[in-house]
């Protein structure tokens, strides 16, 4: 199966934060956005909503900074994963992540990040506008190209006959 990536489209985001809710329930069994691995960053004037989460970087700063090689590339999901058996909880990764996507849960004494829900991200499942989506890369590009070409196609339809 072709690999997928998680992609956000802020123009589709309605700011409902359901992604935060289902993420915290899925991973912690509780409703608590402060533990969610995704967060909708909002500007209230004008209303701009951008869902932020782990970018699963190719050259990941969290991975580079980890002194115990506890952060590794998960080939199956093409993601960045944590091996909690190796992790010593030094939080260097929390400091290194440029996106704020590595969190620290003081109650569990553990770092946490998006694990793509092992291939079935709940934030995507519950996002009805698909402002957060999990798609095959090739399809993503084709869809975007089609969207971008729509104007051209429209003009052609109208004037080319």
């Amino acid at each position: 199966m072709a690999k997928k990536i998680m992609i956000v489209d802020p123009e589709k985001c309605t700011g409902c934060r359901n992604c935060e809710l289902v993420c915290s329930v899925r991973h912690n069994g509780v409703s608590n956005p402060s533990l969610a691995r995704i967060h909708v960053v909002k500007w209230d004037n004008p209303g701009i909503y951008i869902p932020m989460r782990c970018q699963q970087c190719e050259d990941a700063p969290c991975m580079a900074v980890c002194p115990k090689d506890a952060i590794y590339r998960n080939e199956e999901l093409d993601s960045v994963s944590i091996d909690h058996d190796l992790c010593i909880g030094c939080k260097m990764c929390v400091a290194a992540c440029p996106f704020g996507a590595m969190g620290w849960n003081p109650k569990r004494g553990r770092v946490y990040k998006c694990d793509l829900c092992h291939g079935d991200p709940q934030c995507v499942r519950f996002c009805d506008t698909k402002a957060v989506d999990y798609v095959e890369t090739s399809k993503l590009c084709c869809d975007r190209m089609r969207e971008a070409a729509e104007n051209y196609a429209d003009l052609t339809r109208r004037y080319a006959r």
Partner: protein
Amino acid sequence: MALSRKIAYIDLDRENIKLEPIPMEWRRKFMGGRGLDAYLLYHHTPGGCDPLGPDNVVIVSAGLLVGTLASSGSRTHIAAKSPLTNLLGSASMGGFFAPEMRWAGIDHFVIRGKANRPVYIYAHDGEIEIRDANHLWGCGVYDTQAMICKELGDQETQILCIGQAGENRVRFASVMSGRKDAAARTGMGAVLGSKNLKAIACRGTMEIEINRPEEALEYNQQAIDQVISSKASQSMQRWGTNFMFGITNTTGLVRTRNFQYNQLPNSENLEAENLDQYSIGMDACFGCQVHCRHRYVIKEGEYAGTYAMGPDFTTLGAFGAEVGCRSMDTVLVGNHLVNDYGIDTLEIGSMIGWAMELYEKGIITDKDTHGLKLEWGNDEAVIEMIKQIAFRKELGDILAEGPLRAAAKLGPESLKYLIQVKGMSNLHTDERAAPALALSVAVSSRGADHLRGMPAIDLYNLPIEVLERIYRSPDGYDGPLTNNFTEYEGKPRMVMWQELCYMAVESLGICKYHTVFLSPNHPAFTEFCRLIQLNTGLEFSEMDLWNCANRCYTIERLFNLREGMTRADDWLPDRYFDEATPLGLPGVRGKHIDRDKFKALVDEYYQLHEWDQEGFPTPELLKRLGISDLGSSLSK
């Protein structure tokens, strides 16, 4: 756990704060949100108190399912004795405040007294402080929130606050959160203003434990699918409640020029589709997939470039049909102003429409308006009146007192043009052709209102089987039901059922667009029981929930009776009976409400509620609901 949230009792006189747990017995009897608010209000407000005095108690609450996996669990409810009606004050809003309140550990704020200077309350992870708000006094809703976020250094803080209208004690001032979320009806903003309470800010990172997380996730998906598969929701996702304007206006159900017509011709500019050119996207409340509000930017004029949120169906009436205006720009500017000043859109639109009719009839003149031409369709006059009311200037100072007090000042002749019940104005809907809707407006526990018990689906003339599935459960009602909206038979049951359904919904803190309001296929008692069980662990049968809602609605009734309401207050303005609808489709044209038949409707409605002919709950009912102690202190 969801059930471990606290009640914060705050006395602003002494700046005393006390946190107490919510007894499990209260959860079982009143759930939370509006239901528990009714109980708390009855007990903490002395009978006959001045709504704008320190003895009045204002309660801000989050419903039982807020913040949990119940889609749209976002609602904040506010209760107090109303300065508009002198009866029950009750208003709710969506947005993000209620969930943040719960993550901060609080389910109910019960606030009494009056601070000796402007203050705001800040709740953070179970701790509460009262902070100075001198620098915020005089600010609008948008600025107040931005300033509080800035001084607390946390952009995630959620804030409810009043604008200038609440400070000026406009009797229909709203309490606002975000750009648009408004607990607007019954003047709760004026109560906050009277207490020198500018705002409440919440920020929390405390978890709400979900009873059965995996199943709750799956069931949430099911409930969401149920909601967003309906045509009503799909229209709302695209256009918000504005989609209803075209349908209701074409049918002849839109109150126009105060109450002179039931349709606004040539109003294409007010159609929902026209909003597309202003919209930069839709906006949702917490956890909701219906995302029924536009984010928009005003294009032209004095307010060009201003960003705001909305409008909705109500606004199209308030600054459109009711005042005879046909400009979307006026609606968008009006919507922005009322949200920033913190005023009830619906009430202010009705007040301006009424004043325009008085001006037309010569009951008020240029002398009263200080030269302002209050003529139908005068867009500038509408915007000017919004400002005058918010800041209590000129004629606005009189209108800011609300329908009955303003009429007392403008003379008895003005009274008969008011479209109000219990001292509160009605929505811009015209119910003369729809007895069920008219009844819901007349008997509502907070005055003329469409969100207390309106069986809106009656307008769809649905197959009778659909109505039977809904309205015969859960208590096995076996009386009459009819599916033609112009008939009288069987309508009291629909109103009573909707009242209890909405009570359950507002006690759970979910949105009415997620229940049987605009679609017959949305969740109701059956689905609510499952949501409660999976999210909180509380076991409620459908009948438990029904009885719970009945108990809470009865307490609201008792509160109103205690504050002096009588059967005469469950009645419509004369114009509903004496003037027939001049416009609309054939089934709607030439209709008026029949007095005798309407009296019979009220009688039947009382019987269904087990209230006596004076509208007092019977001792048997109170005993069965376990609230005999509340009724015993009442005297007829």
